[in-house]
């Protein structure tokens, strides 16, 4: 081969590589699916930002609290059993453990010395006054869409809290991820550092929903799959992701594997009560989101969120079948091939049937119904196993009639696997085969 042809081939390869990189690196934004013409907020006649119109009259601090709840800062900035907003929650990643910082106004260990500009820089650009570049475990690529006014309202609310002295453990990631300056590149690629721009041809309530979802609720951070570089793959927006080991399921309008079969009422009911009959019950991180965030929003806001989410085009999740809606037989001896899972059956009989019944339908306590739920119609049995391991532990104890307890402490990984497979096999559309080793991984939070 001639030197020239080698050079051409080399150049083509480099160009192709750059093209691939460019394709990989430059991703559509979270609202790209909607198409349409975008306007700036100044140009837009409605007001999709700030607090909703149907919020009862309250003072500025209370309105700021509303926004903070919509953004759900508390969930990530509170350790298990720790003071709210004082940081220390551990995020297990493939690269190490990230601990959330203390965002109470303590001057030594929190953000008490931060100015407005400092706060905006963190929330919009991912740069912390104390730590420098923040890891995208902090969803600043979503919060960047917050208006300055809303972001600073949240700051004002945080500053109204009593300062808590707490130094969370240090975030330690393995090389090269511990090089925070690399996040500058990530930020350049994936944080547009621009404020929310409504889509002109969509309704005001849709745009309000968009703001709530993209700028505040940051749903995509759990429900959208991530690329290898940990950005959100918005080409498959809301097609499902992982959150603390739990599967955050497909929210697209795909009928079989998403929520395409859900009515608006189903979704609104799910967000406001944590449950929708024959659809599912919120568990794990979603239960916390319902409790800390969605339940605090107005009816109109939740409705707007539902409108926006339901407009996301269908993207299937191949391993999720259409849910089985028919309850299982009442007779324990029927519904599962005899002898196929005796251990699971014995455990289900002892520990589960009392609440969940052999049919999977509980008419007295609807949120204990298993029939039709996505978790049970998931042949990986991931969320079923996690629910059995941990129970509804993220909800505060209450005198409510039935809160699912955790079974992980007393039962082995093999037991949890057996009963999870029994549940999925008896009530779901497709059997699962989760193993004890896989349950151990879930148990250890990996």
């Amino acid at each position, binding site marked *: 081969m001639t030197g020239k042809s080698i050079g051409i081939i080399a150049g083509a390869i480099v160009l192709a590589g750059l093209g691939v990189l460019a394709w990989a690196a430059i991703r559509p934004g979270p609202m790209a699916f909607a198409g349409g013409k975008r306007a700036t907020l100044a140009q837009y006649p409605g007001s999709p930002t700030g607090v909703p119109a149907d919020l009862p009259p309250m003072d500025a601090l209370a309105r700021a609290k509303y926004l903070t709840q919509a953004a759900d800062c508390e969930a990530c900035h509170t350790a298990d059993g720790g003071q709210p907003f004082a940081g220390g929650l551990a995020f297990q990643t493939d690269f190490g453990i990230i601990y959330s910082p203390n965002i109470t106004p303590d001057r030594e260990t929190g953000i008490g010395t931060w100015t407005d500009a400092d706060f905006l820089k963190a929330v919009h650009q991912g740069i912390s006054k104390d730590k420098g570049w923040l890891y995208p475990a902090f969803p600043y690529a979503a919060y960047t869409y917050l208006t300055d006014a809303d972001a600073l309202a949240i700051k004002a609310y945080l500053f109204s809290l009593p300062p808590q002295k707490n130094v969370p453990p240090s975030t330690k990631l393995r090389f090269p991820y511990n090089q925070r300056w690399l996040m500058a590149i990530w930020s350049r690629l994936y944080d547009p550092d621009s404020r929310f721009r409504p889509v002109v041809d969509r309704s005001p309530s849709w745009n309000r929903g968009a703001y709530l979802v993209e700028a505040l609720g940051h749903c995509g951070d759990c429900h959208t799959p991530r690329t290898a570089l940990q950005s959100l793959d918005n080409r498959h927006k809301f097609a499902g992701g992982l959150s603390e080991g739990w599967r955050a399921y497909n929210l697209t309008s795909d009928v079989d594997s998403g929520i395409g079969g859900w009515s608006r009422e189903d979704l609104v009911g799910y967000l406001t009560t944590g449950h929708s009959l024959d659809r599912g019950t919120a568990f794990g991180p979603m239960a916390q989101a319902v409790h800390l965030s969605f339940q605090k929003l107005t009816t109109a806001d939740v409705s707007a969120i539902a409108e926006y989410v339901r407009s996301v085009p269908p993207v299937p999740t191949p391993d999720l079948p259409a849910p089985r809606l028919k309850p299982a037989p*009442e*007779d*324990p*001896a029927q519904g599962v091939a005899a002898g196929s899972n005796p251990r699971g*059956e*014995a455990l289900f*009989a*002892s*520990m589960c*049937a*009392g*609440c969940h019944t052999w049919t999977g339908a509980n*008419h*007295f*306590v609807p949120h*204990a119904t298993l029939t039709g739920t996505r978790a049970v119609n998931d042949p990986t049995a991931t969320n079923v196993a996690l629910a059995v391991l941990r129970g509804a532990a993220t909800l505060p104890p209450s005198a*409510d*009639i*039935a*809160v699912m*307890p955790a079974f992980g402490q007393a039962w082995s990984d093999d037991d949890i696997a057996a009963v999870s497979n029994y549940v999925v096999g008896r009530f779901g559309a497709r059997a699962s085969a989760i193993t004890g080793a896989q349950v151990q991984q879930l148990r250890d939070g990996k």
Partner: protein
Amino acid sequence: MVTLNINGSDHTIDVETDTPLLWVLRDELALTGTKYGCGLGLCGACTVLLDGRPTRSCVVPVSAVSGQAIVTIEGLSKDKSHPVQRAWIEESVPQCGYCQSGMILATVALLKNKPNPTDHDIDTNVTNICRCGTYNRVRKAIHRAARMQENGETPVGGSSTA
């Protein structure tokens, strides 16, 4: 206000709708044969029959059961004559006895659906917890009661839904 049909009679009670049926039975109606053991549907001491189905009353809000026929242990017979009760006495099943109301009702329901239960049927359908370890006698009494019912010995008195 909620109206409940218990052991064949209607009772109207002023109670909050989310109160578990268990506590309505015990505290409002003084039907203390149904027991509190765990409050989470795990132990079965609170078992009653709801339209013939064994149901753990500690996890059932009272508002959900008006209009259904509720049978408690008190409703099986007026004089301990239900075949299951007689089998329990003949085999001397109870020790401390606290779990036995639930155990008996679970058995009544089982025998209705499966008049000749196998040991495996008993394993999966009678999952009430007993800390005194009466399980082998429970099993024996279930088989005995099945034979008694097979021989045409029907319950005397009490609710016809049993």
